[in-house]
């Protein structure tokens, strides 16, 4: 009986379209996100909350930069890299951007191969993603070291407004932390994929639940989000 009524309501919700489908889904007294598993829905909701966190950082940076009477250091010069006597503006940042985008590309492909149940290709692509992510964090560490040697501190810097340092360390630091955690979880999930956990139904060490290849997609959502945040940091902090 319960099964039948569940199916009827789901059918009803599936048949409406546009705004009516949203009203039907949300008022259906069951699960609002019909074909979305709880794991995926929760990752989306977590990412929404993380969006607010990064928004707050970027908005406070905007407020500091707009309201200071001291000139803001020119990021194009601050982040320039000198190679063979020629100075390239933002070179390292551009390379970091391409590395992170590439890692998103390999991740998207890993999700696809996961659903095709191609264990080895999925795991290799995920490990490639992790390697690119680790390379990104490495370049960020290099950038931090360079800036700290040049005298940038959260409370002062040689070129202008003091808030530059605090904004820089806070925003890129928080983003780098996200990348680092992403790399760790990529390796964890890649190991599960390679071992065949999602084919044999082996239970997870922490949750004792059987996983599925959807874990790869959920991991991918987080990883693409990290790339997404970098798009905004690149535009607002480095280019503006």
């Amino acid at each position, binding site marked *: 009986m319960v099964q039948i009524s569940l199916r009827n309501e789901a059918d009803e919700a*599936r*048949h*409406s*379209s*546009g*705004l009516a*489908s*949203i009203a039907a*889904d*949300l008022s259906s007294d069951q699960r*609002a*996100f*019909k*074909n*979305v598993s709880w794991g995926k*829905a929760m990752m*989306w*909701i977590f*990412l*929404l909350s993380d*969006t*607010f966190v990064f*928004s707050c950082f970027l*908005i406070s940076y*905007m*407020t500091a930069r*707009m*309201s*200071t*009477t001291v000139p803001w250091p020119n990021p*194009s010069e601050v982040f320039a890299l000198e190679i063979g006597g020629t100075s390239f*503006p*933002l070179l390292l940042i*551009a390379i970091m*951007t*391409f590395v992170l*985008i590439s890692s*998103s*590309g390999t*991740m*998207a*492909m890993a*999700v*696809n191969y996961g*659903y*095709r149940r191609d264990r080895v290709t999925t795991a290799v692509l995920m490990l490639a993603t992790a390697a690119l992510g680790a390379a990104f964090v490495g370049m960020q560490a290099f950038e931090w070291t360079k800036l700290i040697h040049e005298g940038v501190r959260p409370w002062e810097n040689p070129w202008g407004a003091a808030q530059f340092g605090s904004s820089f360390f806070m925003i890129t630091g928080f983003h780098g932390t996200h990348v680092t955690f992403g790399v760790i979880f990529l390796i964890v999930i890649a190991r599960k994929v390679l071992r065949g956990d999602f084919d044999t139904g082996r239970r997870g060490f922490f949750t004792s639940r059987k996983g599925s290849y959807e874990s790869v*997609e959920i991991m*991918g*959502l987080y990883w*693409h*989000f990290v*790339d*997404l945040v970098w*798009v*905004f940091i*690149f*535009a607002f902090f*480095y*280019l*503006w």
Partner: protein
Amino acid sequence: MAHVATHDSAQHPIRLYLVVWGWLFVLSTCSYLVDYFHLQGHLRYSLILLFMVLKAGLIVAVFMHMAWERLALVYAILLPIGAVLVFVAIMVLESDYTLLSRTLHPGLL
């Protein structure tokens, strides 16, 4: 909608992801060139925002599969972002006011 609801992301050809990857490279190069050629003023800011929005849209729609999700989830995630824009507007007004106060009364703040 029925088609969208039953969409299976395993059906996407790998080529789709490679094309999006390529476009993200092109758009990133474009935004880098904005700085490289020292574009200034409104042109600079509008180009930065344009490339940023295009890149973000591609990542969310294709890589994160948002284009194939049900509308209820899409709206639940995207609508709250509007609150961020309101927050931005509030803080723009606030910073203008702070800057004005700091300019008019240099010794005070």
